[in-house]
């Protein structure tokens, strides 16, 4: 049996009405049983490459295809996606839009039914896919009753039921919370190992450490060209990923930095366990040791900051806030918190932990459902005040900018809120200019919104609210779907807003960014705040975070694995870890 399933021969693809090709001269072979990580920044051509594998491009997405794409010997130019779908399955990032039947089993059966299979075979394939993706017991559920991870597993099952040899996965975990990510990654691993399905996973950086931890091959793509194609550890050793703005996993960065001093040709680890083994080996061979004073240094660092030290005076006080939806779901359960002027806060937790509901309650869009609840913002009773009267004091930016952007041009969008307030044209011009400047959007004012990249759209959405000059600005998942470089740039802009005196609250799943940019981290689980403190204080509670299905940064996990060596747990960056180490064999 020929082990090559897919072959791309000098493939160049240009979308209809585009001048530049999205894929340029790609030669690639995918063999049976491979697990490939396709790594590249936003707009690098990853999605186009995946669309070429099953003929969706050029059949569904028309364009000029040069070269040949062969799927099990079938040229995609001559075969329709319907036929190719039996060989290559495609799973997208957003699970909600991929499940369009009303029950799980109907959705899984959709593909086999379309293939014209008899009922017995359809039922057999549905059973097989449901078992493989561990969906037993959920067969009769409506998609809206499922968590994000379960929905994505249903999407995978729907594709698996087509019995493909290859699964093309376009950032399949980017829109999931940590538990959802881990569920889906474990399912993908099973598909590859137990069912011998070749998987190719596109990844733009946010989940790189998870994806490379089990990939057998990594391909780096930029501007439609393949730059690297090797084993994951070899690819990670190459600093190219950093240059592309994808960012290296912390453990790889740590080992690379150590090796640059020790010159031992250390392998790049793809898992925390791998990094732990390398460090233990170095300790055993006495190439490194931990500094004696590290415990003392960390004790100082861990000492709680005094009230008011971080940020200014208290601006918001919430006491005993409960919120119950009309269907009886208790989303927020007795939350009390304070926020100070000029603080940058990360609000983290699983999907459904109550973060967004709490945020919408704090801004006055939802009113607490218990009469005892009190929310005061600068002395104003939020509970009793109309949301429109609060807009200029506290505001909220939704996760998906497409939810709110409706004007064709950036300037019109940013002006909208001020026009609603019936401010004078001079005042509007001045405030819009200030907001655009703060967010680095000068020069973009007259651009059509549809032509903007995702990060710029997010900034326009923030500008359209920031123009009201709220003292507290809550932003839901601002870095969702962005690569590392765009995420860092956006966070730097938000930190600039904090420095201007705004209190910034970011709802996020990205623990690393929260550590790097936020002064304070609040962790929610099941409608309650379970941790609240500086990032180091919060992240050192590895066990509590695990219970809330959150993962500490890789370096903190490494410190946890090395706790026998009295390594403190409040280490969150590579620099902090390196600070604790004495290099004995440094060259």
């Amino acid at each position: 049996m020929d082990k090559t399933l897919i072959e791309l021969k000098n493939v160049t693809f240009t979308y209809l009405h585009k001048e530049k090709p999205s894929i340029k001269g790609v030669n690639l072979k995918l063999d049976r049983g491979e697990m490939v990580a396709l790594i590249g920044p936003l707009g690098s051509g990853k999605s186009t490459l995946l669309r070429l594998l099953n003929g969706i491009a050029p059949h569904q997405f028309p364009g000029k295809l040069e070269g040949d794409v062969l799927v099990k010997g079938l040229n995609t130019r001559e075969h329709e996606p319907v036929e190719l779908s039996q060989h290559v399955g495609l799973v997208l990032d957003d699970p909600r839009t991929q499940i369009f039947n009303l029950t799980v089993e109907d959705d899984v059966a959709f593909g086999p039914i379309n293939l014209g299979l008899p009922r017995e075979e359809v039922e057999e394939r549905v059973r097989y896919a449901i078992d493989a993706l561990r969906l037993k017991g959920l067969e009769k559920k409506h998609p809206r009753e499922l968590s994000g991870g379960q929905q994505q597993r249903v999407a995978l099952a729907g594709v698996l039921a087509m019995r493909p040899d290859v699964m093309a996965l376009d950032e399949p975990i980017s829109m999931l919370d940590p538990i959802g990510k881990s569920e889906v990654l474990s399912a993908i691993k099973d598909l590859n190992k137990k069912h011998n399905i070749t998987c190719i996973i596109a990844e733009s950086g946010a989940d790189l450490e998870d994806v490379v931890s089990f990939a057998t091959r990594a391909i780096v793509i930029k501007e439609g060209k393949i730059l690297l194609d090797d084993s994951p550890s070899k690819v990670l050793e190459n600093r190219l990923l950093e240059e592309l703005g994808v960012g290296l996993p912390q453990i790889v960065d740590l080992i690379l930095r150590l090796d640059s001093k020790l010159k031992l040709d250390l392998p790049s680890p793809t898992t925390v366990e791998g990094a732990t083994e390398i460090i233990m080996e170095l300790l055993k061979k006495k190439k490194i040791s931990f500094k004696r004073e590290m415990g003392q240094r960390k004790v100082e660092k861990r000492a709680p900051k005094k009230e008011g030290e971080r940020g200014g005076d208290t601006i918001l006080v919430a006491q005993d806030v409960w919120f119950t939806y009309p269907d009886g779901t208790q989303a927020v359960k007795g939350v009390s918190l304070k926020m100070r002027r000029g603080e940058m806060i990360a609000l983290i937790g699983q999907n459904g932990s109550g973060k967004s509901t709490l945020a919408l309650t704090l801004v006055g869009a939802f009113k607490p459902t218990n009469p005892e609840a009190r929310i005061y913002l600068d002395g104003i009773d939020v509970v009793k005040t109309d949301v429109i009267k609060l807009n200029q004091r506290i505001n909220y930016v939704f996760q998906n900018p497409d939810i709110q952007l409706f004007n064709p041009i950036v300037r019109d969008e940013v002006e909208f809120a001020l026009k609603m307030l019936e401010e004078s044209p001079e005042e509007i011009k001045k405030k819009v200019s200030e907001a655009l400047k703060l967010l680095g959007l000068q020069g973009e004012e007259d651009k059509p919104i549809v032509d903007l990249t995702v990060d710029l759209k997010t900034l326009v959405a923030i500008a359209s609210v920031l123009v009201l000059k709220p003292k507290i600005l809550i932003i839901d998942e601002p870095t969702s779907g962005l690569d590392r470089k765009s995420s860092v740039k956006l966070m730097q802009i938000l930190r600039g807003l904090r420095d201007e005196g705004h209190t910034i609250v970011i709802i996020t799943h990205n623990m690393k960014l929260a550590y790097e940019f936020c002064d304070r981290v609040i962790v929610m689980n099941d409608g309650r705040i379970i941790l609240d403190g500086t990032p180091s204080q919060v992240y050192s509670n590895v066990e509590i975070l695990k219970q809330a299905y959150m993962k500490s940064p890789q370096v903190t996990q490494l410190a946890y694995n090395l706790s026998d060596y009295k390594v403190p747990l409040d280490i969150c960056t590579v620099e902090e870890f390196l600070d604790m180490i004495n290099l004995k064999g440094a060259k």
Partner: protein
Amino acid sequence: MPVFFEYVPRNTFIHRLHPLTKVILLLGIFIAISVLWDPRYLALCMIVVMVLYLVSKTPKKWLLIAVPFGAYRFIEAGILGVTQPAEVFKYLPPEMASQVLFSFGPVTFYFGGFLWALAYIFRIFIGMGATFMFIYATSLNDLIKSLRNLHIPAKISYIVVIALRFVPELFREINLTSTAQSLRGWRLKTKNPVKMAKMAVPIAGPFTRRIVSYVDRITLTTQVRAFGGGKIKYREKLGLRWYDWVVSIITIVVVAITLYFNIFYGVGLI
């Protein structure tokens, strides 16, 4: 908590009936009320439907929506009765049909008009009650799957399924957009339809874009799962149980008898 006019899974006798049996029952009720005019026969139908309604545990408050329709029909039919010549009543003797019940200003209520109005009200409550019971006790997904047995084209049945799946999602998105815009000071505060249309743009814009995006995504994901590829051979098992046969046969026999006597002997007409 059931949303208004939504299927709720329960274990009542009506819920347990096969969707096709419920379709036959619903059609039977509609055929009967479309040929019957005599309030006495309609009252009998009403009793049967209300018993079934209670058995299915359909929320009683849903029936309140029939009240304004009933009231409107009563007034309309009452007035219609005024203007109707007595000859329109095929079986009601003219002197009875034109008997004055009471006068209200320039409007006179006749006995014929009263019977007409009463028949209409019964028809409204029977029709709405049967429909609400059907909605409450029938999973549309099961219904559509059953309809495939009747060789309804897959493309048509999937259009219905996709609409059922995504319409609630889109409503949820409208709510989100509306909250997002209200946080920027937007509020629909006019009753002028032209201004209202203009003010709805901040909601309609993102909503339209989301629909386009949904359609785009759904088209892509249906394509990669071979939609429209081959001839669909899959058919659901019909799975009718003995009580489905009993209910279906009784319904068909009763409707056939009603039609026979109605057409040939004028039974149920006024």
